[in-house]
């Protein structure tokens, strides 16, 4: 009997350790292939060269064009999701009646359940033609603005739901104190509740940014596959994630330099999202206000 208990505990421990092996596996795989990559390409070139052409005969390995593509689409997504998401969060937590809130919040979260390839279709087949009909033909068929906007819609529930949770968790007596001083709901929301929930809100925004940086299919479908060091949202670009997909779709021989580039790009992606995620954990821990 005692032995059986011991065996079960060890089995369950092993299940928990699978997650550690996963992390070790990811870091190991990325590092091994990246070492191979940097034995052929100097790390200075990788970080400073302004051309990314590993698949052409004149190979250049500067990650900046891919990085700028990722940053551009992420910035557009954040510019859509943060103002919209925060307004929704404040409306739902401070203004809306509870029944409305209980229906609307899950409905918004459906946006997060939609597979990203569907958003890609929406960006390419609906948003881009819509923008072209508004702004004219200056907008290329593949561009950064349309997937950026759609990505913003994808991360909207992340911002609105997590921020709303943070706002809702602020104790009632802070609101009542503010109302008693004659403040309107607007003043209370922005000057009392918002600062009190700031750590929770910043966590939600950082997680949304991290999600946007790692998002693949929307940009792979609608942003194009042309690495270009630009912040012009109307022309085709390529993000880091799209590049990995592009190489995976072709038949690049294993252990060639072209093959290793996807791991070098992958480790860049991993490091950026890892830092952002840990910044959010740190903020959550450090600035979590405790009200009694």
């Amino acid at each position, binding site marked *: *009997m005692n032995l059986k*208990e011991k065996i*079960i*505990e060890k089995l*369950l*421990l*092993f*299940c*928990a350790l699978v997650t*550690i092996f*996963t*992390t070790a596996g*990811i870091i190991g*795989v*990325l590092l*091994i*292939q990246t070492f191979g990559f940097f034995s052929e390409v100097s790390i200075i070139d990788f970080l400073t060269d302004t051309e990314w052409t590993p698949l052409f005969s004149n190979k250049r390995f500067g990650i900046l064009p891919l990085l700028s593509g990722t940053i551009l689409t992420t910035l557009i997504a954040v510019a859509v999701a943060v103002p*919209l998401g925060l*307004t*929704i969060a*404040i*409306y*739902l937590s401070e*203004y*809306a009646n509870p029944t409305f809130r209980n229906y*609307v919040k899950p409905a*918004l979260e459906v*946006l997060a*359940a*939609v597979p990203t*390839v*569907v958003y890609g*279709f929406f960006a*390419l*087949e*609906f948003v881009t033609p819509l923008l072209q009909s508004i702004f004219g033909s200056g907008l290329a068929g593949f561009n950064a603005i349309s997937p950026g906007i759609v990505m913003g*819609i994808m991360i*909207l529930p992340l911002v609105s739901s997590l921020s709303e949770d943070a706002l809702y968790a602020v104790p009632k007596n802070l609101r009542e104190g503010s109302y008693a001083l004659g403040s*309107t*709901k*607007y003043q209370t929301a922005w000057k009392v509740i918002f600062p009190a929930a700031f750590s929770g809100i910043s966590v939600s925004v950082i997680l949304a940014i991290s999600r946007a940086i*790692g998002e*693949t*299919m929307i940009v*792979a*479908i609608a942003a194009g596959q042309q690495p270009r060091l630009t912040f012009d949202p109307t022309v085709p670009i390529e993000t880091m*994630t799209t590049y990995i*997909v592009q190489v*995976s*779709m072709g038949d690049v021989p*294993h252990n060639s330099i072209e093959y290793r580039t*996807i791991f070098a790009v*992958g480790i860049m*992606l*991993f490091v950026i*999202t*890892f830092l952002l*995620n*840990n910044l959010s*954990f740190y903020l959550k821990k450090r600035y979590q206000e405790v009200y009694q």
Partner: protein
Amino acid sequence: MKAKKIRRRLRRFKNFRKYELQDKIFQYVGLACTLFGIGILFVLLADVLMKGLTRVDWDFLMDLPSRKAERAGIYTAWIGTLWIMVSTAVIAFPVGVGAGLYLEEYGKRNKLANFVEINIANLAGVPSIIYGLLGLELFARALSLGGSILTGALTLSLLILPIIIVSTREALKSVPYTIREASYGLGATKWQTIWYQVLPASVSGIITGAILAISRAIGETAPLIVIGALSYVPFAASGVMDSFTVLPIQIFNWISRPQEEFAVNAAAAIIVMLSITFLMNGIAVFFRYRAQKKIKW
């Protein structure tokens, strides 16, 4: 001096109407933003339905892929999705629930469990395409499984493991400690307590999390492309070592083609894909509702 002060106060009081107006305006802006968010969902659905609904029929579901858009179907794609769904569930569910049990029931407050917890939070934030790179090197190449269903299922299992673990822990947390103590009081061992008391009381919550995680897995495209799933598979998969395609990859493949007829096919496949996603989410909501309703401690 005093009059000046009073006048200043009065002026501020006059601002009261301004603040009220500002408050009202924001209320409507907030409502508009909220409705806009939900409206986008409906626009997306309407757009897809309008473009693809007429294309969805029995033949579309049962036809093999073809270079001619009007003859192409999604048979191999949804069979592949089904294979991936089942094999991912078989791998990820026991491991995820096991890990959740260990962290919540056994490893509380020990250093290892703490480390595992931080690690899980980090894994949950790793972009899915990175898991694809792991699967490509580890399963497809090092273990020589190639671009098979097994490689895909193992990769997606690792991807959704954090979700299953976190939701399992939440479900276990909702079982009050007194239940465990009563069981121990009757002489039950730790595992007997877990198996006969804790798990039955939390099973609805655990299943909710697992279904949502699986639903996320079958919507994934990028990691499967990276491990080498194909976009053209002439025959339906019949075992876990077969090469395969899935609905999202089929959709991606059709979207990437310039001809308008393929966009129609993509929209039709999206309708099937979304039906599966929403059905699974619906089932999950049902289980969550049951979990909340059934047990009142």
